[in-house]
């Protein structure tokens, strides 16, 4: 078998041309395409990471807002309870004062009524006693009445 140098050279040049064409028309665009894709993936990954971070941030913020809202709600409930207790206490105090005032008023009215009735009864009793006394003295005999005049006469003449 003869080694034909020109043929070999032709083959080498042919191979080089094909290789160069392949590198130029296929490898570089493919490589560029892969780079672009890789960059897109990285960009998408960064965007996804940012979205996740944003989401986590929002979650944290939401959690904080919920905690704050819960605290505020508890504060409102606590304040409402305290205000309710205070109002209840005030109402009770007011009712107690009102009741005491009513009791005192009723007591005074009873006392006044009792005194009035007592006074009336005493007056009626006095009137009755005096009426009976008057009747008894009126029925005394002349001699006794005369003695009564003698007795009173001494008193009057002592004053003249």
């Amino acid at each position, binding site marked *: 078998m003869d080694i034909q140098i020109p043929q070999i050279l032709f083959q080498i040049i042919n191979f080089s041309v094909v290789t160069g064409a392949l590198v130029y028309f296929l490898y570089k665009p493919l490589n560029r395409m892969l780079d672009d894709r890789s960059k897109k993936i990285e960009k998408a990954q960064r965007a996804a990471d940012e979205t996740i971070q944003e989401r986590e941030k929002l979650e944290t913020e939401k959690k904080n807002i919920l905690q704050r809202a819960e605290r505020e709600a508890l504060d409102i409930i606590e304040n409402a309870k305290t205000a309710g207790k205070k109002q209840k206490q005030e109402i009770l105090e007011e009712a107690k004062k009102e009741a005491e005032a009513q009791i005192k008023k009723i007591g005074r009215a009873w006392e006044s009524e009792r005194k009035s009735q007592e006074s009336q009864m005493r007056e009626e009793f006095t009137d009755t006693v005096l009426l009976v006394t008057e009747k008894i003295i009126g029925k005394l005999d002349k001699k006794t009445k*005369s003695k009564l*005049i003698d007795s009173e*006469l001494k008193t009057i003449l002592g004053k003249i």
Partner: protein
Amino acid sequence: MKITVTTAEKLNANQLKTIKSAISKKHPKLKLDIHEKLDENLIGGLQIMIGSKMYDASVKNKLAEIKTQLIKLN
């Protein structure tokens, strides 16, 4: 001087004498003009009016005084 003696029962002579005597001692220079008056409302005792001054020792007055005192005790 006009003197009015009011009683529920008529005064006896001795009582009238005692009155005249006592008033004469107090007012020796005055002429006494004694009038007797009966008033059953006095119940007992007597009232003597000397001039414009009244001396009341009637049972009616005493009972009224007792009533006033008892009412005051309230």
